[in-house]
C-alpha cells in the first residue's frame, strides 16, 4: 500500500486545494494519519473510495476524541522604558523584563475514521477531522453519503461527543434517550450523582461516598 505521504500527494493531485496535513504518530506503531479540512473532506473521501490504486471501499470504524481547552503559560521577554537613577541623574532606560503570560488554546473535538480496502486487501488509512471549538462550532461534514457504514457510528459520535454531522440522513441520539442533554464521553462531563453508598469505596468514589455520609445514611 502507499505510504501516508504518497496518499497525501495523490489526494493533492486529484483534489485541488485539499489542504491535507499529516498527523504523525510518534509511537512504535507509527500509524500516521491524514488531517482533513472540513470544506474539502467529502471530495477527498470520494477520491479515496473511487481511486483504483487505493480503493478504500470499507469504513471500519468512526470514533471521537475530545481535546479540552488548554491554558498555556509561557515567559515572554518584553523591552520597555523604565525610569532609573543613573549617577544621580534620573533618565529613561530601556530594560528587558521577563513577563509571564497565559493564553488559552481553544480545544476541539476530533473525529477519526479508519478505512480499509476489501478489493485490494490493504489498510488501514486513518483520517481525522477537527471542529473549530467544543461549544458552538462543532459541525463537520458527514461521510455517510460516501460510506454507508458511517451512519450509526456517526450517530454514536454525535450522541456521546456532540459533533454535529452535516449531511447525515438521520442524526439522532442512538444510545442515550432523546431528552438527554449531556455528552457523556466528553472529558468535562459530570455524571449524575445517583449512587448513595459504596461497599468498597476508594479514590474518587470514596470522596463521593463521604460527601453523602451523614445525609442519608445517618452514620
Amino acid at each position, binding site marked *: 500500500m502507499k505510504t501516508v505521504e504518497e496518499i497525501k500527494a495523490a489526494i493533492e493531485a486529484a483534489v485541488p486545494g485539499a489542504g491535507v496535513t499529516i498527523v504523525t504518530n510518534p509511537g512504535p506503531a507509527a500509524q500516521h494519519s491524514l488531517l482533513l479540512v472540513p470544506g474539502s473532506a467529502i471530495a477527498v473521501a470520494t477520491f479515496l473510495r473511487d481511486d483504483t490504486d487505493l480503493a478504500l471501499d470499507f469504513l471500519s470504524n468512526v470514533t471521537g476524541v475530545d481535546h479540552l481547552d488548554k491554558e498555556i503559560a509561557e515567559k515572554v521577554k518584553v523591552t520597555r522604558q523604565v525610569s532609573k537613577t543613573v549617577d544621580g541623574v534620573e533618565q529613561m532606560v530601556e530594560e528587558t523584563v521577563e513577563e509571564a503570560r497565559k493564553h488559552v488554546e481553544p480545544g476541539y473535538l476530533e473525529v477519526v475514521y479508519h478505512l480499509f480496502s476489501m478489493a485490494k486487501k490493504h489498510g488501514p488509512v486513518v483520517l481525522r477531522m477537527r471542529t473549530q471549538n467544543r461549544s458552538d462550532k462543532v459541525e463537520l461534514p458527514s461521510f455517510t453519503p460516501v460510506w454507508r457504514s458511517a451512519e450509526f457510528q456517526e450517530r454514536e459520535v454525535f450522541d456521546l461527543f456532540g459533533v454535529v454531522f452535516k449531511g447525515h440522513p438521520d442524526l439522532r441520539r442512538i*444510545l*442515550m*434517550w432523546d431528552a*438527554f442533554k449531556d455528552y457523556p464521553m466528553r472529558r468535562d*462531563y459530570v455524571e*449524575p450523582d*445517583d449512587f*448513595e453508598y459504596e461497599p468498597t469505596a476508594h479514590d474518587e*468514589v470514596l470522596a463521593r461516598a463521604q460527601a453523602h455520609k451523614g445525609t442519608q445514611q445517618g452514620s
Partner: protein
Amino acid sequence: MAVDESLKIELGKQGVFVTTLQELYNWGRRSSVWPMQFGLACCAIEMIATTMARYDLARFGAEVFRPSPRQADMMIISGTVTKKMAPQVVRLYNQMAEPRYVIAMGACAISGGPFKQGYNVLKGIDRYIPVDVHIPGCPPRPEALLQAFITLQKKIDAQPLTGEGRPRHLDENAPGEFPVPVQGEHDLEPAANKNVWSVPVVIK
C-alpha cells in the same frame, strides 16, 4: 389457622386428608408461576438454559414463558437495566396482573454490578419496583436461578391470606401501580422510588 403437623400425618395414615384454604390457595399459586418471556442481557442466556432439559424449570411449574405481561406472574430481571430501558421495565411490571413477583438476577440487576460507576446503568432495579428475590453472580448459574425460584416458592407458601404480610392482591391499600421514571435531561427522575427503596445502611 394452621393444622398441627403431626396430627395431619396421623390422620393421613387413617385415610383422612386435612388441609386449610390457605395451604391449598398457596399451593396453587406457587406451583404455576409463569415467568414473563423477557431477557435484558447475558443473564438471559442462563435463564434460557434453566428452562431447557438439563436444568428443567418445568419441574417447579414455571416452564410456560408468556410473551405478554398480562399473562405472566413473575418477571425475571435477567441482566443490566440501562437507564434507557428502566422506564419500560417498570411499565411492563405495571402491566402484569397481581399476584406478581420479581426475581432480580445477577449483579447488574441487583446493584448495577460492574457498570455501577457508569452514567447509563441503573444501580439496581429495586429502586423502582419491589424485588422478591435477589441473586448475586455474574451471571448466576442455572442452579442459582433454581434456588431463587425455590426461595420464591417458599416465600409464597409462607404468606398468610389475611392480616399482616398478606400478598398485595389481597391488600386493598397496597400500591397497584408503581410510578414510571421519566428520562430527564441528565438522569432518570426521580432517581429512586422512595416508597420502595431506601439507602442501605452500611454496618461496620
